[in-house]
């Protein structure tokens, strides 16, 4: 699944606004889908798909802020753009503090909307690529044998081959062979490349 599949999820309880935003986004070349409330959006959500969320702050039941909090708690990193009314600026500030990508004030014109959506999609794309890279590294790391992984962990800590050999009670020659296999399996060009990958793996685990 690629970046071209990025989807803008429009969540608003006002049917006219919902339809209008979807039409406008589509006319501007985006893929967009509308939901009348937060639960129906969450029900059909595919977290692996790139995109962003455009949600009204005022909705009966689950508000836009509630939705954003929920996504964060669930570890879904879709950027959320909050739509506010005139009197809801304090809510918007709250949303930004809680990590919303942006907020736009009703009524807005297309440039405001499209700018905000594009920014959200960009940051969503970055996250998406990042996530895909981590997933790649993870797949490669899974191909390592237990011994190779041990060697990698010690090497990226900056230990020389000899120290690794002492640590694992094997010969330096064997370490050298394992190390070459690790570089090959992980697709690393240099030691620094391997170190970066190991850090990514750690991040992904967190």
């Amino acid at each position: 699944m690629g970046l071209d599949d990025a989807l803008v999820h429009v969540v608003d309880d006002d049917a006219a606004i919902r339809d209008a935003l979807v039409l406008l986004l589509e006319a501007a070349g985006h893929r967009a889908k509308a939901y009348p409330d937060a639960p129906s959006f969450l029900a059909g959500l595919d977290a692996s798909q790139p995109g962003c969320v455009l949600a009204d702050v005022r909705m009966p039941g689950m508000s836009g802020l509630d939705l954003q909090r929920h996504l964060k708690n669930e570890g879904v990193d879709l950027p959320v753009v909050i739509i506010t009314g005139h009197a809801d600026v304090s809510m918007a500030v709250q949303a930004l503090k809680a990590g919303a990508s942006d907020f736009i004030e009703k009524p807005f014109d297309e440039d405001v909307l499209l700018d905000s959506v594009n920014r959200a999609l960009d940051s969503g794309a970055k996250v998406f690529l990042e996530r895909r890279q981590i997933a790649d590294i993870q797949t490669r790391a899974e191909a390592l044998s237990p011994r190779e992984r041990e060697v990698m962990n010690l090497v990226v800590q900056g230990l020389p081959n000899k120290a690794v050999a002492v640590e694992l009670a094997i010969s330096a020659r064997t370490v050298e062979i394992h190390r070459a296999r690790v570089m090959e399996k992980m697709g690393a060009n240099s030691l620094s490349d391997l170190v970066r990958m190991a850090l990514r793996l750690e991040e992904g685990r967190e």
Partner: protein
Amino acid sequence: MKYSILRTSLYGCLFIAVYLILDRLSYIHVTFPVNVTPWNPSAGIGLALLLVYGIRGAPLLLVSMLAADFSVRGWPTPLVPTVMANLSVVIFYSTAAQILRENVRIDHALGGVRHVMWLLGSSLVASALSAYCYVGVFLLAGVLPSSEFWSATGRYWIGDMIGIAVFTPAVLVFMRRADWPPLRIFAEILGLGLGIAATLWMVLIRGAPENFQFFYLLFLPLIWAAVRFGIKGAVLGSMAAQIGVMVVLREESAETVTAFQYLMLALVATTAFLGAAIEERRRVEAILHARQDDLAQVSRLSTAGEMAAVLAHELNQPLLAAIAFTRAAQRMLAGESPDTPKARSTLDRAVAENQRAAEIVRSLRQFIGSGPIARDSCSMSELVADAMALAAPEFSRRGIRLSTQGDKFLPPVQVDRIQIQQVLLNLVRNAMEAIERDGDISVATWVLDGMMAVQVTDSGPGVSEDVESRLFQPFNTSKASGMGLGLAISRSFVETHGGKLWLERTGGGRTAFRFTLPLSK
């Protein structure tokens, strides 16, 4: 016309028939050759007739009285004194009724202590004068011995008085469309009836009638009736008690009955006063309730600013949708292959959203009332008091003193109560927010150049010239919250009334807003 003559004569005959029946039923305990008995319900319905129909009822009453003398008593006295005696009675009661109708403007529902007092007081005088003249005429005519004058006068008086005290209020109260009580309180009414009957039994049968030691027990069921059912309960209860008393005492001597009637008069009068007082209280409570509803409506709008925030939200929805539909349509039409049908239907939806916005504005206009507004004659000091009552809790919380100044007797103003309360409330709240804590606000009212002037003055920091120039512009606010619409809307309210609202420059660093309103014509 013919129909109304027919109806009038039918009612006349009906009255005579009822009069004759009551006269016959009460023609007991007769000790004199004339119509002097210790209870006289026909006098009660006679006075009621005069109160309802005025002087026009007088001939009918005279005819009824003569007919009763003829049919019930077989015309025992000579013609001239009989007619003269009855005529004097009719004249006194007609005069009393006329005074009650024209001068006192008595409320036929007797919904107040004042009305009961006037009714009983004037019938007391009228029946005393009637008794004096009625008995006097027969004395002069030689029908009665002079030794009997005072006892006959006293008996006539108490007979008429108790008849009036019991029957006149009953007729008056129930002639107005009687709204019958719901079924569930019939049980209570039945209980009341039984209570009266049981008490009568205690008073009159167990205790001997000639000693009245148990009489005060009768107060209990009648007070119950009055407290529960107001003036209606009082008059019905009194009538039941009086009829019961007469049924039980029908065999007793006229002296005993007469003495008893004095007690009954005290009882009936007390009950009537109590019933009227209860009625009055209920009415005041009802007025109070209505006023509270009015106030609730004002506080629903609370401040125009809050309303404007709601309005902004409501308008933003269709505006946003309309913009987005239009922009989408533009994009559909741009480029190599314009999708005209889709753009058209999208534009249709944009138009629909614009109409939705227009509808909101229309309903708002009706809500604020720049269309026809209801204007009543209101007391300015009441309007001020109402607005103060609404703001009072917040004032005491902020430690702000509030005072009102102005003439106690101001002419009424012709205004829409809700709107003007809104203006007052808005000015007072602005003043309060300017002061923030610990200060004072005064509201003064007086008549200025044929208009009512109202001024709200506060001890706040005042208004700078820069702010003053933009004071009445919508969406201009110095407050952290609010839409800045309060003064703009207030001014528009006052101006639709034909008044003005402005910032009054006063010395001493106090801020004063003043507005004027037209007086009632």
